[in-house]
């Protein structure tokens, strides 16, 4: 078998055709050196044609199957065509891209095998939708370049691998459930069930029955035995959201599950073993609830084996552009639109906004804008009215103060505080920790007006 790449047909107008298609295409000689690399292959891998040609295919393509089940090797050595084989590659940015691969042999005019051709399709969009349905998120799916979140990333894999109970604190919409899911999906229990219970959404008696189950006759409408969420989460993870909203009586029962790893169904004296990992979350600081006697100290210490505190979005503004880009991509997929992004003015407004609803609110804002946007870029007019600033308050007004970042930050903080308190200057000043007259003086200096 010849191993001379020069025997491959020289790409001419076939080249043009291959460069015009959406699927990646590359060819190799019999030494696995890349001899052709089309435009879509450049786009999907992030590697230019100049860099790719002449390199070993596995050093460029970096597919999950390169070492163990190379599709081209099967085709060239076994003369077996591969069609739509699912795999993933790592692009130049270190991102994993799901793809489907098809291969065929290349022969010269005499019919001798001179190499192989591989076509691959980027399945990122399909995979993103699938993840949204299955929620198989890992930490690598969480968007952040915030230092506090990155510190959490550093230790979370170890937390996930352990069996320890985890307490996640953070304001509503800060992504507590996302972290809980990611912990589950990285844990040894990942193949087991993941069960979510919002403890704040159900009345106490119903919640008790939901969590622990009941036997027939336990209460008036209990016509048959029913497993609770703890039973359904057996072998997996139970996520108890808004645990700070549970009653004292329920807290006692939860404490027993955490201490003894066992419980009784309502109306039954039989003890059931709980093979469940517990992740609890609260939008309030549980330590503060202890002081008021609203939350049991012993349960708090049982839950607080590992505590993760998620910052509000206002404390991680550097993530806003990344999140906006992500939500635009996601709504494009969902709604079949081709919106390129947001205008500079919109980004200014989004960067300055206070986000009492955190990441969830930002998502809602982008979804709202998608409904109204008919063009390719989201403009200020597409944003919900309540987040739009009156012209005098827009961040560009703060540009008037020049490039001084301290003054910019000060202006944004003042605007946020004013917005949060509906323009109430005394409350805004109290939040900022300054006197009302100091606030007035700063507003005058920074030319901030608020109705």
């Amino acid at each position, binding site marked *: 078998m010849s191993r001379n790449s020069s025997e491959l047909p020289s790409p001419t107008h076939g080249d043009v055709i291959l460069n015009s298609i959406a699927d990646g295409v590359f060819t190799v000689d019999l030494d696995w050196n890349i001899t052709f690399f089309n435009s879509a292959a450049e786009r999907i891998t992030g590697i230019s044609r100049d860099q790719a040609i002449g390199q070993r295919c596995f*050093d460029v393509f970096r597919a999950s199957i390169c070492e163990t089940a190379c599709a081209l090797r099967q085709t060239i050595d076994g003369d077996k065509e591969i069609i739509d084989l699912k795999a993933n590659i790592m692009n130049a940015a*270190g991102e994993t891209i799901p793809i489907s691969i098809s291969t065929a042999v290349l022969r010269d005019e005499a019919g001798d095998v001179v190499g192989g051709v591989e076509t691959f399709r980027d399945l990122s969009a399909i995979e993103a939708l699938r993840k949204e349905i299955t929620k198989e998120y890992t930490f690598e799916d969480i968007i952040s370049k915030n230092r506090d979140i990155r510190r959490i990333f550093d230790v979370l894999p170890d937390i996930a691998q352990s069996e320890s109970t985890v307490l996640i604190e953070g304001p509503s919409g800060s992504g507590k459930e996302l972290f809980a899911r990611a912990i589950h999906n990285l844990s040894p229990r990942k193949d087991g069930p993941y069960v979510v219970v919002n403890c704040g959404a159900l009345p106490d008696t119903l919640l008790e029955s939901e969590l622990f189950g009941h036997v027939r006759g336990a209460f008036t409408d209990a016509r048959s035995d029913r497993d609770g969420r703890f039973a359904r989460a057996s072998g997996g993870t139970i996520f108890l959201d808004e645990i700070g909203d549970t009653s004292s009586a329920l807290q006692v029962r939860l404490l027993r599950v955490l201490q003894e790893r066992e419980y009784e169904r309502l109306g039954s004296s039989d003890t059931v073993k709980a093979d469940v990992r517990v992740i609890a979350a609260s939008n309030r600081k549980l330590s503060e609830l202890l002081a008021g006697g609203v939350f049991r100290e012993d349960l708090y210490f049982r839950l607080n084996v590992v505590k993760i505190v998620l910052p509000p979005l206002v404390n991680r503004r550097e993530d806003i552009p990344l999140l906006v880009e992500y939500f635009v991509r996601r709504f494009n997929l969902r709604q079949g639109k081709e919106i390129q992004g947001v205008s500079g003015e919109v980004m200014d407004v989004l960067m300055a906004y206070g986000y009492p609803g955190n990441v969830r609110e930002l998502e809602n804002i982008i979804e709202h804008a998608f409904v109204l946007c008919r063009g390719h870029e989201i403009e200020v007019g597409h944003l919900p009215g309540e987040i739009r600033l009156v012209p005098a308050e827009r961040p560009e007004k703060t540009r008037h103060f020049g490039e001084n970042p301290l003054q910019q930050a000060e202006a944004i903080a003042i605007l946020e505080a004013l917005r949060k308190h509906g323009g109430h200057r005394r409350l805004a000043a109290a939040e900022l920790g300054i006197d009302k007259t100091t606030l007035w003086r700063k507003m005058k200096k920074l030319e901030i007006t608020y109705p």
Partner: protein
Amino acid sequence: MVIAIPIFGSRVSPRFDHAQELLLIKEAEGRVVESKRVIFGDSGPLERVARLAALHTNVVICGGISGFLARQLAFRGVRVYSWVTGEAEDALGCFLTGQLETGLMAGPRGPCGRWRLGRGGRGRGGHRGRRGPGG
């Protein structure tokens, strides 16, 4: 010093998370004092990180690696030279002579090229752009 190179045959493996084997080298005063192959198999990415930490690895020389895993290694005190291509022995030679860099193409007589920074930002500290939902 313990140096680990995930390998594919005799070459640096293209993917840290899918490498089947590892070349584990003990180095002292610029010389290799011990070298052995260790099976990585199909262990998960975080298991690989934990295993390298358990092997007291100081340096990892690898091909493609996600920013997340590179950071996990760095957090455990492991210095990472990523996006390296070529023969594992050549890459080791470059390291021992102080010529190794992230993104290096290693040749028998030292560095023989370097991946230019791609559109995706390959290169030293070039892992960026997470995909997925916010939180």
